[in-house]
């Protein structure tokens, strides 16, 4: 949700950086001001000093209070590409609020995380959907018809599964020119991920189709005269859905990480677009991690998101288990 309405939730654009504030640490959000008895959230401004190692040291400038307001005016963005709005959930006037710190160009990490979520999550979801649709259809047809077509298809599937996914992904990406536009790169990544992923689901669905096609209700469907296509679509594949749904949820993290890996290496989403992967690129090097640990937040987010999908997937698997008496 946050990702869809990214503009609303982010105080800043993903590419809006203020160099003056580069590598700023996360601002402490204060809620209680004893002196003035204010109970609204506020931050202090940043005071910058350069120490003898030419590092920038930030501290709070307690001279001025900048209240954090809700529904403030900020940069213009479009909802669904149609409505032009300029209200945001929260923000400050007069200074920058970096709730999760800033990166080397002074861009707000939180905002970039939110915009990045759009890209990383959508690539994951779209990639999975395409993979699974292809895999289920191929698996279903292969398993149902059997014979030489099934044999050939399965050998192809096995060959695809043999190649280590990650290297295949790199190879595919490298075979395209490095200077694609953002949109092209995005599209390319989705295609590559789908291409790698359909094989394993195809094999499982093919196994299920193979056993389902001998069940009596499938024979009955044949007996009343249904065409093969309708039998596969209406009787065989629906019985694989409970497995497929669980598999989908458990696979999405793989796709998200796949995209992150590509972007981390610079082969994926390019700057200035944000994706969790290319944000993590800035977290390389022990110096950066030691001095600006907040650059690791994208990693934390990936872990949390991955865990969420896994948990939902496992829960679904228990709910959809056909041996559950309650379900029957």
């Amino acid at each position, binding site marked *: 949700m946050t990702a869809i309405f990214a503009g609303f939730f982010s105080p800043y654009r993903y590419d809006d950086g203020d160099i003056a504030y580069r590598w700023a640490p996360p601002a402490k959000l204060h809620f209680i001001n004893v002196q003035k008895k204010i109970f609204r959230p506020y931050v202090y401004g940043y005071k910058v000093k350069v120490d003898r190692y030419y590092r920038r040291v930030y501290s709070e400038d307690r001279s001025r209070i900048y209240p954090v307001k809700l529904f403030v005016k900020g940069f213009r963005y479009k909802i669904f590409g149609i409505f032009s709005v300029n209200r945001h959930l929260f923000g400050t006037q007069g200074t920058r609020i970096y709730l999760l710190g800033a990166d080397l160009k002074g861009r707000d990490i939180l905002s970039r995380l939110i915009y990045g979520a759009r890209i990383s999550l959508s690539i994951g979801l779209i990639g999975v959907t395409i993979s699974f649709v292809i895999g289920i259809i191929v698996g279903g047809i292969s398993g149902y018809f059997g014979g030489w077509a099934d044999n050939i298809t399965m050998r192809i599937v096995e060959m695809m599964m043999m190649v280590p996914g990650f290297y295949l992904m790199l190879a595919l990406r490298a075979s395209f020119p490095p200077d694609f536009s953002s949109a092209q790169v995005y599209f390319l990544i989705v295609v590559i991920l789908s291409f790698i992923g359909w094989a394993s689901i195809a094999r499982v669905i093919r196994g299920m189709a193979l056993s389902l096609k001998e069940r*009596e*209700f499938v*024979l*009955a*469907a044949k007996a009343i005269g249904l065409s093969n296509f309708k039998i596969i679509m209406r009787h065989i594949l629906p019985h694989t859905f409970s497995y497929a749904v669980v598999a989908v949820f458990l696979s999405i993290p793989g796709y998200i990480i796949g995209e992150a890996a590509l972007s981390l290496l610079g082969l994926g989403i390019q700057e200035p677009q944000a994706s969790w992967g290319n944000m993590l690129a800035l977290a390389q090097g022990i110096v950066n991690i030691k001095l600006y640990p907040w650059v690791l937040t994208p990693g934390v987010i990936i872990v949390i998101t991955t865990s969420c999908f896994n948990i939902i997937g496992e829960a679904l698997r228990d709910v959809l288990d056909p041996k559950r008496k309650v379900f*029957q």
Partner: protein
Amino acid sequence: MNIVETKGLKKYFKRKKQLIKAVDGVDIFIKKKQVTALVGESGCGKTTLAKTLLGFYNADGGRIILEDKDITRIRENYSFVRERIQIVFQNPSLSIDPRYTVFRTLLETLRVFKKVSIEMAKGTIIDFLNKAGLDETCLYLYPHQLSGGQAQRVSIARALINNPRVVILDEPTSNLDVSTTVKIIDLLAELKDKESLSYFFISHNLKLIAKVADYIFVMYYGKIVECGPKDILYRNPLHPYTKLLIEASEYKLKSAYIQGKSKEGCVFRGRCAIEKPHCEVEPEAKEVEPGHFVFCHYI
């Protein structure tokens, strides 16, 4: 008179380099408006025969004739066959898609051959459910919510809804209680007369076949060994295997007879009480009485 006939029908399977002759040169016929029965023990090929008749398998030899039309090449005659021959399976709750309600199952069947709106379909569906002894209350139930008898009635309604001429009944009551069996058998008899159907009744239960059949084929490992009208066959069973079956159905069979098939010659060799050297050669049909045929050298 014969609505379905097979001549020399063959269906072989290759399993692990062995050729299994499931149906090996079978001549049967299904008479119009009668109950033709096929009796045999497990593994004799009766279900394979039924599936080949329906075209689930392509025959490896011989011919199938339906209403005087040669339908051996099933692909070319798909809808012709499906409109005329239907089947009721053994296990009622397994032969209906567990994810479909009764209504949807029957609707789908109805729509195979004609485009009907849901309104029109509903009328026909309720009509056939009534014929099968069910009422509207089960329209939106799922198979697991039905009893065995009810599920079998739905199966019967589904088989009849497109007005076939022939219905193959593959052990339709073997999974049912005694009391339910009685009701289903009565229902089938009633429907046969009302809807002018011809039945092909497959079973291993001799006593049941004795009750329902008009004409009986006895099958043993892919071959017909004897066939005849019910009364004549029971009064005068001639083939050693038929006699064995009748003896067994009265629990009088004691000797250690082992099921199995001989490698060549008469299919009953090696188990036969009256075996002689000439049994190395496959026997031909002998018409002993009108309509009563035996496949044995020594009758």
